[in-house]
C-alpha cells in the first residue's frame, strides 16, 4: 500500500469545482511559480509552520486506505451536495500512483484533478483517466517565459493537454493573471488561439492576481520576492477567448 503526503484537507471547498467538495492538497510540486500562494505545497516533505497562533506541522504521511476512508466517511454528503473530491496541491501528479490508489478505493464520487499538467504522459493519464473533470493550468504559452517564471518549460504540459483532447474527460483551462507576466494581450491571445476548438474544453477560468499571495511565506520560513510588479493593475481580457468561441469566467 502506498503512502502519500497531504498538507491540507478542506471539507467545504467552494471554489474548487461543482457542488460541495472536499479538496485534498497533495504536498510537493515540480514547478516553482513566482506567484505561488501555497508555499507549504512546494516541498514534498512535511514541514513546520510557525504562525502567531503557534506551531504545527504541514504535511502528514497517510496511506491510500486511510485517505480513502476519510473521504468515504463523507461520500454520502458529497454526493448529496452534488459535489465530490478535488485533488489539488502542490501538484497531485507528483504523487500520481498514490492518488490513483486512493481513487480506486473510493465510493462512487465525482473526481476532479486540479493540475499544472507537468508530469510524464503515462503518469498524467493514470490520474486523468480516473477523473470526471480536470482543471488544467496554462500559465504562459511561450515556453521560455514559462521556464523563467515557473522553473520548467511548457512542452510537457502542452503535450499532456493534447493527450487530454483525445481522452473523454472534460476540462477547464485555468490561467492565473499575473500583472505583466501572464496577463499580457500576447499571452492571453496565444492561449486562446492554442485552445480554440479543442475537444473536451468546457471553458477558460481567469484568476486575477491578489497581493495576498505572499501571506504564508514567513510562517513557512521562506521569502516572497516576486520578480514582477505586484502593484500593477491586472489586465483582464475575456474578449480574446469569447471571439474564439470559448466561454471565459473571471474567478
Amino acid at each position, binding site marked *: 500500500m502506498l503512502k502519500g503526503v497531504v498538507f491540507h484537507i478542506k471539507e467545504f471547498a467552494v*471554489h474548487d469545482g461543482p457542488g460541495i467538495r472536499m479538496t485534498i492538497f497533495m504536498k510537493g510540486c515540480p514547478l516553482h511559480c513566482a506567484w505561488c500562494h501555497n508555499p507549504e505545497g512546494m516541498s514534498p516533505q512535511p514541514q513546520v509552520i510557525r*504562525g502567531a497562533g503557534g506551531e504545527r506541522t504541514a504535511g502528514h504521511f497517510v496511506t491510500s486506505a486511510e485517505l480513502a476512508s476519510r473521504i468515504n466517511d*463523507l461520500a454520502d*454528503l458529497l454526493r448529496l451536495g452534488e459535489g465530490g473530491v478535488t485533488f489539488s496541491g502542490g501538484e497531485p501528479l507528483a504523487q500520481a500512483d498514490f492518488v490513483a490508489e486512493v481513487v480506486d478505493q473510493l465510493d462512487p464520487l465525482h473526481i476532479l484533478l486540479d493540475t499544472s499538467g507537468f508530469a510524464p504522459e503515462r503518469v498524467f493519464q493514470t490520474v486523468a483517466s480516473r477523473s470526471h473533470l480536470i482543471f488544467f493550468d496554462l500559465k504562459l504559452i511561450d515556453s521560455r517565459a514559462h521556464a523563467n517564471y515557473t522553473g520548467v518549460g511548457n512542452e510537457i504540459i502542452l503535450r499532456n493537454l493534447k493527450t487530454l483532447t483525445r481522452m473523454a474527460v472534460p476540462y477547464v483551462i485555468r490561467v492565473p493573471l499575473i500583472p505583466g507576466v501572464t496577463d499580457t494581450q500576447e499571452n492571453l491571445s496565444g492561449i486562446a488561439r492554442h485552445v480554440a476548438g479543442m475537444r473536451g474544453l468546457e471553458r477558460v477560468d481567469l484568476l486575477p492576481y491578489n497581493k495576498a499571495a505572499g501571506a504564508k511565506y514567513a510562517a513557512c520560513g521562506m521569502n516572497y520576492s516576486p520578480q514582477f510588479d505586484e502593484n500593477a493593475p491586472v489586465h483582464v481580457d475575456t474578449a480574446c477567448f469569447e471571439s474564439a468561441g470559448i466561454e471565459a469566467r473571471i474567478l
Partner: protein
Amino acid sequence: MTNAITAELNHKKTARGAPNNSRSNGNVHSPEVDFELEPRLVRLKNAMRDGFYREFRRTEQIDVLNECDRENLSWPRRAARLTRRMCEAQLPIIVPDERIVFTRTTTAIPPIYSPSQWQTVTQGRTLHECGVISNICANWEMLLSQGLLGRRKVALATRERLKRNAEAVEFLDCAIETIDTVLDLARRYAAEASRRSRRGLVEVLEHVPALPARSFQEALQAIRLCHSVLWLGGHYHCGLGRFDQYMWPYLEADLACGRLDINGAEQLLAEFFLSLNKDSDLYPGIQQGDNGQSLMLGGVKRNGTDAVNPLTCMVLRVARGVGMIDPKINLRVTKDTPLELLTVAAKLTEIGLGFPQYSNDDVVIPGLVAHGYDLEDARDYSVAACWEFIVPGSAMEVVNVGAVSMPAAVDQAIRAGLPAGDSFENILNRVGGNLQLQVEKLAERSVRLLLPPAPYHSVLMGGCLERGSDISNGLKYNNFGIHGACSSNAADALAAVKSFVFDEQSVSPGCLLDALNTNFDQDEALHRRLVDEAPKVGNNDPRADTMLVKLFELFADACESVPDNGRGGIFRPGSGSAMYYVWLARGHEGMMEPTVGATADGRKQGDLFSSSLAPSPGVRVRGPLSILKSYAKIDYRRICNGGPLTLELSDTVFRNSEAIRQVALLVRLFAAVGCQQLQINTLNVETLKDAKAHPERHRNLVVRVWGWSGYFCELDENFQDQIISRHVHGK
C-alpha cells in the same frame, strides 16, 4: 403636509400598478433580482439610523403605582392599568414617509408595585428574569381574522357565561380594558392621520386592529400596533410566529384583485420590517439586538402539507434588502426543501446578520411529538426569542428556566472519580448523577415560579378569553426548557480522559489533576497535548462524539426523571447555551449554575466555552461536513428545546452565485444528516480583529483570499490588516 400628500399619491400610483407590469409577472421576483428599498424607505431607514424617532420620546416617568395603590387594585387590574396608561401616554406620530405607523414616545415602563409590595406579593416564589411574561408567541392569525372587537365579543360572551366566577369576571374586565385602550390608541392615530390629510392611512386605522384585516397593509398595521402594545405593557421577547402563514392570505387577495403588485407588496413588507427597528433600543435584552423579534417561515401546515408560499421567499429577499437586525428570520427546512428557496435564504446569510436560522422539520416535529405535543401543534411550531421551539398561541412555556453546566458535571466527576480510582464507566455514572442534581436544583426553583397576570397578552392567545382565564394560569402547553450548555467542551474533556488516562494510559490521573488544579501553569506540554492531540467533537471522531451523545442522553434522563414542573408540564432538555458559555466560565450575578476552573479538554480557567452546538473554541476541526456528522449523532427526539449548531463561514465564501448555491447545498446536508437547528455566521470584521489580537482563540479561523484559503493566524500581520480592511470596506 405636502410631503404627506405626495407620499399618499405615490402609494396610490404603486397600488394601481398594472398587473401586466413586467416586474410583477408571477407571484415573486426572480431570486436573481435583488430587492431594493424605494427612495421613501431609504429616507426612513436613514432617519432611523440617525435616531430621528427618538426625538419624539418624552422622558418623564408615568406614574401608575399611585393610582393603583389609591384604588387598592388587584394585580390583574394593575397590569391592565399599566397597559392603559402606557397607551394613553403615547403621542400619535405620523411621519410623512410612513405608511405603517406607530412610534413609541415613552421610555421606561413604570412599576405597578413598590419594591416592598413586590417583595410581599412574590414572597417565597421564584421569578423568571424580569418577572413578567416574556418569550412566547401570540396567535397573530387569530388577531387578524377576529380583530380586537371580535376578541372583545368573545370576552363579553364568556363573562356572561361565567358571571358568578369573580376571578374570571375580573380577568375578562381587565382584558376588555386593555382592548378598549388599544382601540382608543388606534382612534387617536386615525385622528392624527386625518389631521395630516393622510386619507389612505385614516381608512386603515379606522378599520384595524378593531376589525378583521382586509388587506396586506391593514394586516401589517394591526400587527405593528398590537405587537408594540405588548412591549408597552412590559412584556418582552415577543415573537412574531409563522409570519408567511398568517400573512399570505391577505397578500394573496391583494395581488389577485390588483390592489398591490409585487413591488408594492415588497415595499410595504420592508417598511414593516424597518418599523420593528424603531423602538427596539428600548427593549430589554442581554445585548442590543437580543430582543426576540423572531419570525418563522416555511415548513408544513397543521395538516402536514407543504406550507411554503410566495411570501416565504419574499420575506427572505426583502430582509436582505432591508439589511437590519430585526426581525430575525427563521426558516423551516427538510432534506427535500427546493434548492431555489435555500439559495434565496443563502443570499440573506451572505450579508452577515447571522440569519436565517434553519430548523429541520424532520427532526423537530417528531421531537415535539415525543414530548407530548399533538402532531398538528408540533407541525405548527415556531421559535421563541432565540431558538427554542414553541407553538404560537397555545404555549405558555418558559423555555429557558436555566442551564445545566455540562462542563461542571464532567469536571466534578473527573476530580472526584480519578482520585477514587474509578473506572471510566463510573466516571460517566458520576456525570449522570451530577446532571441529575443540577436538574433537580433547577426544578426545585422552577416549581415555585410565579407568572404575573397578563390580561393584554391573554387577549392575543388562544383560549384565554374563551375560558375566562389569564395566560398566567396556563395554556395547552406549559413546559419549561433547560439549556444543555457548553456540551462540546464537556464531551472533549471526557474524551481526553478516556483516551489519555484510560485507553492509552499516557497521562496519569495525578498528573492531570495537578495540571487542572494549577491551571496548566506547570505543565504546558500536557496542556498542548490536550488541546492539539485529544479527540475533539466536530471531527466526526467517534471517540469524542460518543461522549457528546452520552452527555445529552444523561441530560435527557435527568429531565425525564422530573415528572411535573409545577404547572402540569415537563422539563424539555435543549442544546443551546444563551449567555451561559460566558457565565459558566466566569460566573454571573445571581446565577445558581456552577462555574468551573481549568478543564480536562485543555481549556484554561476563565476561557469561554463553546456557544450552543459548536466545536470548542480554538480547537482545529476538519470542516463543516465533519461538524455536521458529529452533531447529527445526538438523539434530538429527546433533546427538543432547541439550540443551534453554529457554523462560521468567511464572507469571501459568498463571492459568486455558484458559491451561494453551495451554501444552500450545505443547508440541505444539514437537514439530510439529521441535525436539528443551524445558524450560519458570516465572519465579520470584529471577529477578524479579535483573531489578530488573540490568535490563540481563533486558531481554527480560515479566510479565503484569491484562489486559496489559509489560517488567518498564520498570515503575516500586513496581510491580516489587508483582509481586515477589505472586510471593513466590503460592508
